[in-house]
């Protein structure tokens, strides 16, 4: 991590140095500077309140205008300008209690939270699930994401790729834990909406009831706005509903979570297409003051091969999945080729199997490792006997009399890397062959269907045909019009759309209240500081990531029943106990360095701390070697490493993992705890050469001093002989 990049930490360092060097000799000014430093330290360690910033400004002003000499005034001036220049960063530290650069060490955020596009406080909710507080976990998640259940089933979980536990064995099953807690909270009737702000009478219109639109609706409704959502389909959910098949995401899940949003007073206008059934001007006349475009990317890319437009059996994946989701359970053909290697291709192929197709083949132009689809999805597709033709590119759809009879393909070879960092497939001359199929489903990518937006001539579009926005505020080039989700990013994930929707809701709130928009991208918020779950080192090492229970393969071939059956309560609670709590332990490695290189004890085997080259980790080694001297705990900058005395024992824990505990020995005079025998043996061995000490060395320092003093005190001047 680059040092000296966060302005808060920089200023704390600079001001500490100025004070330590005695450069402010006037007592009054020095006190002001000290107060500013204290406030700034609070702010950089998560202990700051809303008044901290103004208090610092006021003190800096006093330094500048009431300072005794030029040095004081110059320092005041410098601080005022620093506070002004980095105002947003200072305030963000106060509001989010996260320092994205990790320079303010106590506010160093957990990698999982930083990886989450909607910025969920992952360590927080995982801990709550470990405590059995599923409904609190859901309430915590919903501060950043109103769809914990949907995401618990279908999220692409970028958090798990960053999970530090993955450097020891396997990442925490973050997604599955979320799904578990959401289902429990919902079925227990404890899935509740937070308190809504009073109605402010202002109207916001959201175009598109997908994840981005519904998320914005949720947060705006909570802020007291009157929200109306336009949707061209007869139901809410967008691509969650008509893109993701039911065996991955049951309809009830979407319906229940959408109902929670409806419960906040959000109005839905179904079967209403923007630009066709209603125009922007009409909506403005209705009194809507801000608009949020979240129409997604619903159009499909064309393959541009001969025969593509000639047969009814060539149906693009988006259209196909939508029809199936809306209830048209017709088999597209007996033998189907699905073109593409993304999640949509997997969904289409697996849907075909469920509709009764004899064979579904995925035709992909690169290799298996290059497939953009989720690894779980690819695995499950393989289990369901989907065929894969890798390194294959279609060149023609063959057929006659309006019926597809085959797909003509070329083999490819992987050439040099392209701009996406993947090797570009190069067709091999003369390698053409045919696959016998009677239906073809291209799933090679989606684009935005911008037809309804033609009258908005001022709206800026990118070269990729997505709406151009300011990424910090999601504002478009049209005033009062915001956009997020696939319509901005191009086809992406549910959780990215949710993140965009949340950001847009914040921006719309600012816009309608006349508050300036932020310049820096939002920082995820540390929602809660929770104590760690206490786990013995052995348990921490022995627990394995739970294997998801799956529906049997026979069932999968005939029904749309949910494939992933969820975690059992026991496994979910255990899984939460594997979490390393990276929101508390910042993995600076000080403890390991001190124990190994300074103390020479080498009791901490924690190779996962090294980011680039993780070494071997075994928390159990501490129980064999640790002498419980406490140097690691004394030097831990965040309090993750703790040593305490309880129940006759001295105990060392790292974020709740019990590394070592040994029986205490006590002062024979006053009974104060001294330390375990192993600690005293360590000292005895080192001091053996020094010489013999009277007594057994079992005195605390206070009693040792008193005893010595008494021995001295008894030496009185001898009474002279009479």
């Amino acid at each position: 991590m680059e040092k000296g990049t966060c302005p808060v930490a920089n200023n704390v360092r600079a001001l500490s140095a100025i004070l330590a060097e005695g450069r402010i000799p006037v007592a009054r000014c020095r006190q002001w500077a000290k107060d500013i430093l204290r406030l700034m330290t609070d702010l950089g360690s998560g202990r700051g309140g809303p008044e901290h910033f103004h208090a610092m400004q006021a003190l800096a002003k006093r330094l500048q205008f009431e300072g005794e000499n030029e040095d004081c005034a110059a320092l005041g001036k410098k601080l005022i300008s620093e506070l002004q220049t980095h105002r947003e960063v200072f305030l963000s530290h106060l509001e989010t209690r996260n320092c994205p650069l990790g320079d303010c060490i106590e506010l160093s955020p957990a990698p999982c939270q930083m990886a989450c596009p909607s910025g969920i406080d992952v360590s927080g909710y995982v801990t709550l699930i470990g405590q059995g507080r599923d409904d609190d976990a859901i309430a915590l998640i919903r501060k950043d994401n109103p769809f914990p259940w949907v995401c618990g089933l279908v999220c692409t979980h970028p958090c798990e790729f960053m999970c530090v536990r993955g450097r020891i064995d396997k990442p925490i099953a973050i997604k599955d834990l979320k799904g578990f807690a959401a289902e429990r909270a919902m079925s227990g009737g404890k899935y509740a909406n937070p308190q809504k702000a009073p109605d402010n009478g202002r109207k916001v219109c959201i175009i598109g009831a997908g994840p981005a639109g519904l998320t914005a609706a949720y947060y705006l409704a909570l802020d007291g706005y009157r929200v109306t959502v336009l949707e061209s389909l007869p139901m809410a959910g967008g691509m969650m509903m008509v893109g993701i098949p039911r065996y991955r995401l049951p309809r009830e899940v979407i319906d229940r979570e959408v109902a929670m949003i409806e419960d906040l007073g959000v109005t839905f206008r179904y079967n209403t297409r923007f630009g066709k059934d209603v125009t922007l001007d009409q909506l403005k006349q209705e009194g809507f003051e801000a608009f949020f475009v979240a129409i997604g990317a619903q159009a499909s890319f064309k393959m541009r091969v001969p025969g593509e437009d000639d047969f009814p059996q060539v149906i693009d994946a988006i259209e196909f999945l939508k029809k199936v989701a809306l209830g048209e359970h017709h088999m597209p053909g007996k033998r189907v080729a699905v073109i593409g290697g993304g999640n949509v291709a997997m969904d289409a192929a697996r849907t075909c199997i469920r509709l009764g197709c004899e064979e579904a083949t995925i035709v992909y132009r690169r290799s298996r490792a290059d497939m953009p689809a989720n690894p779980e999805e690819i695995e499950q597709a393989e289990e369901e006997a989907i065929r894969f033709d890798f390194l294959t590119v279609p060149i023609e759809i063959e057929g006659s009399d309006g019926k597809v009879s085959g797909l003509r393909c070329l083999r490819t070879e992987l050439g040099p890397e392209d701009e996406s960092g993947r090797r570009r497939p190069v067709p091999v001359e003369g390698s053409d062959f045919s696959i016998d199929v009677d239906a073809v489903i291209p799933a090679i990518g989606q684009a935005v269907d911008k037809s309804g937006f033609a009258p908005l001539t001022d709206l800026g579009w990118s070269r990729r045909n997505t709406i151009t926005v300011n990424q910090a505020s999601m504002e478009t080039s049209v005033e009062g019009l915001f956009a997020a989700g696939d319509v901005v990013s191009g086809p992406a994930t549910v959780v990215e759309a949710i993140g965009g929707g949340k950001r847009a809701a914040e921006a719309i709130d600012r816009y309608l209240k006349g508050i300036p928009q932020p310049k820096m991208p939002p920082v995820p918020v540390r929602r809660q500081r929770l104590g760690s779950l206490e786990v013995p080192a052995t348990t921490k090492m022995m627990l394995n990531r739970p294997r998801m229970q799956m529906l049997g393969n026979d069932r999968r071939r005939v029904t749309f029943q949910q494939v992933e059956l969820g975690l059992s309560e026991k496994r979910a609670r255990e899984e939460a106990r594997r979490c390393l709590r990276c929101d508390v332990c910042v993995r600076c490695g000080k403890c390991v360095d001190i124990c190994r290189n300074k103390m020479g004890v080498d009791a901490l085997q924690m190779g996962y701390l090294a980011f680039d080259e993780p070494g071997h980790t075994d928390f159990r080694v501490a129980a064999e070697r640790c002498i419980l001297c406490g140097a690691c705990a004394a030097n831990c900058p965040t309090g993750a490493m703790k040593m305490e005395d309880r129940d006759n024992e001295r105990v060392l824990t790292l974020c709740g993992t019990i590394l070592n505990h040994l029986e205490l020995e006590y002062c024979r005079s006053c009974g104060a705890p001294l330390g375990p025998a192993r600690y005293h043996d360590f000292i005895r061995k080192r001091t053996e050469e020094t010489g013999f000490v009277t007594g057994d060395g079992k005195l605390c320092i206070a009693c040792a001093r008193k005893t010595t003093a008494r021995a001295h005190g008894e030496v009185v001047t001898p009474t002279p002989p009479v």
Partner: protein
Amino acid sequence: MSKYYLFQDVKNCIGCHSCEVACKSNKDLPLGPKVCQIVTIGPRMVDNVPKAAYIFMPCFHCEDPWCVAACPTGAMQKRAKDGIVFVDHDLCVGCKTCMSACPWGAPQWNPEIGKVVKCDYCKDRVDEGLKPACATVCTTHCLHFGKTDEIQPIRRERYARAMASLE
């Protein structure tokens, strides 16, 4: 032993604790650690009069200190030129082994910095030709600091006087 000697004339000490205050202030210490400490013995009835003794307890700067032997990091050191035993805060990691090893309870814990502090005869002051902070403020002048060969034979003289008074 170090080249220096810090002698307390117990008979003259009134237990005002000025030495402790000056020491803590000089070392900028929080609540807790007492680098030097006045330990009160008594009061006890002697010839029907209550009497107490106030014993000044600094570090003795042993010839062969246990604390230096115990310290695993080399933070606790004995200064070669004059034998002052001191702790280098850049090296101290706060394992407290010196505290457990010292038979006299001299090394103290500074919770504010998580490191050990101990009496070093105010070596920075001594190097400037000054006396340690404690000896500077002693109200009854019962703390005497100097080189071992310069120490006044106070006790010997007092005993001699007592003997002489018999005659």
